[in-house]
């Protein structure tokens, strides 16, 4: 199925954004202390859909919140009663503006695990009720390598509507999914016309320009293959020696999905929470009996990087990394998953 493309300019796009914000529940990057996070907005002035990639948090918490209540319960000597939690605030129909391509792809990658073995209906419901507007970056940042990983620019359907800048201030608005197509039909961009035949060409040119701005490039198929053979490599230890195990990489990662369950109980009533965890955390695999199958830091790093580049790829056909580079930006000691996996892939196979 082919989808429509509209052409407009900066003003037209702003008007479209304004129309969306006035009609729908809208989330967009909002600046605070120099960092951007996705928040509910009521006017275009308070947000910035073109926020810089390095300063923007992942969109993951809008689908998989940092902490959420699973159940409420009452446990007395008479027995235990389970109560429903409050209504899910993130499940309603909504629009997210200014999602980066890497972030949008992260959600697509996460969907695979959420509808596998156990069906996470909350995640899927939030996702199916959300229309994602994604702006393609014009320039890569220091740690970006998104186009190196399963990135198919022609058939990218991670976002519902893609926005691409063309030459002479032109802006292309392109529906990428049926949901996006319907949404654009109901909310037409003011002043937009059917594009000239050169639209495809110009978008391609923008992508080529974007491609040349990458400092980091990776042949992921080669990395997948080589990493699978290097489980016992000492390279994991060498590459991650200066990691301080702070876990911030997992919290800001668009694809990490480890979580923990904890109970908060006061007298007879309690709440059961699901909140983020990280496989880099020393307590993550600590068993009740005291045994820890991953006691050393490099083993936890091995699990993290092998899961991202080998196991997930084998099971779902995509890498569990979208190359956004946020982990390297937030890392207090500047470790990049890019460097770790490349170091391992380049290591000799003999131990």
């Amino acid at each position, binding site marked *: 199925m082919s989808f429509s493309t509209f052409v407009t300019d900066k003003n037209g796009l702003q008007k479209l954004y304004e129309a969306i914000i006035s009609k729908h529940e809208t989330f967009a990057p909002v600046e605070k202390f120099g960092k951007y996070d996705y928040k509910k907005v009521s006017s275009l002035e308070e947000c910035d859909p073109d926020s810089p990639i390095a300063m923007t948090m992942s969109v993951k918490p809008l689908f998989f919140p940092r902490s959420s209540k699973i159940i409420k319960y009452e446990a007395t000597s008479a027995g235990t009663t389970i109560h429903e939690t409050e209504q899910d605030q993130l499940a309603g129909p909504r629009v997210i503006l200014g999602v980066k391509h890497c972030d949008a792809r992260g959600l697509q990658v996460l969907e695979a695990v959420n509808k596998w073995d156990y069906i996470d209906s909350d995640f899927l419901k939030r996702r199916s009720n959300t229309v994602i507007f994604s702006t393609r970056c014009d320039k890569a940042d220091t740690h970006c390598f998104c186009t190196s990983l399963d990135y198919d620019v022609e058939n990218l359907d991670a976002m519902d509507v893609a926005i691409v800048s063309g030459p002479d201030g032109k802006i292309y608005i392109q529906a990428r999914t049926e949901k996006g197509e319907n949404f654009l039909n109901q909310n037409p961009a003011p002043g937009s016309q059917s594009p000239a035949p050169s639209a495809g060409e110009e978008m391609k040119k923008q992508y080529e320009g974007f491609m040349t701005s990458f400092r980091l490039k990776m042949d992921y198929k080669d990395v997948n293959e080589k990493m699978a053979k290097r489980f016992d490599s000492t390279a994991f230890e060498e590459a991650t*020696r200066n990691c301080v195990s702070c876990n911030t990489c997992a919290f800001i990662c668009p694809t990490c999905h480890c979580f923990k369950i904890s109970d908060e109980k006061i007298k007879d009533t309690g709440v059961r929470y699901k909140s983020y965890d990280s496989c880099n955390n020393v307590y993550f695999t600590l068993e009740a009996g005291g045994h820890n199958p991953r006691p050393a830091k490099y083993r936890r790093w091995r699990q993290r990087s092998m899961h991202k580049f080998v196991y997930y790829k084998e099971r779902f056909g995509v890498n569990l990394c979208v190359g956004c580079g946020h982990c390297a930006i937030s890392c207090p000691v*500047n470790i990049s998953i890019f460097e770790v996996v490349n170091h391992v892939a380049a290591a000799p196979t003999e131990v």
Partner: protein
Amino acid sequence: MDYSKQIQDIASKLFADDKIDVFVGYCMNGFDDNQVPVVITDPKEVQALVFTEKSVFNLSNYLKADHTRGKRVGLVVKGCDSRSLNLLLTENQVKRDKLYIIGIACEGVVDDRGQKMQNCMECIVPDAVVFDEMLGTPKGKKDYIVNADITELAAKGLVERREYFEEIFDNCIRCNACRHSCPLCYDRL
């Protein structure tokens, strides 16, 4: 402030004399002019060591890691780092006789944009307080200046102060990275 050469010489001598098992220092990150901490166990790698005003991270944090626990460690500390190291020593987290400490008479470090750090502007102890060897000329202790922001915050009422902190912590994602990157939050990892 460039002590790269001196630190390389000291580190290779320490390895040659079999005085340390591990050396913790800084090296270039490999793609721009910023630095990352490095944990060296192979004497051949000491050539990578550097120390300039871009050497920001507090290395005493590495004394709680697997690589250094129970080993003889050489490390570089600035004035501020040495105070946290001193606290670790006082609280019996590390043994002094297992450490070889290179103290720096620090002139202040800069952030990744080259701006001098705010903390360094208000630094009162620029010289290392605990060391085996000192690099640079000690400048002595300065008078304590109360940070202007703190004075302003202290003047606020309880409700306002609460609002201030709620505003600040609105950005918190509860990853607890602050805890793990803090040398004094040393609950065993």
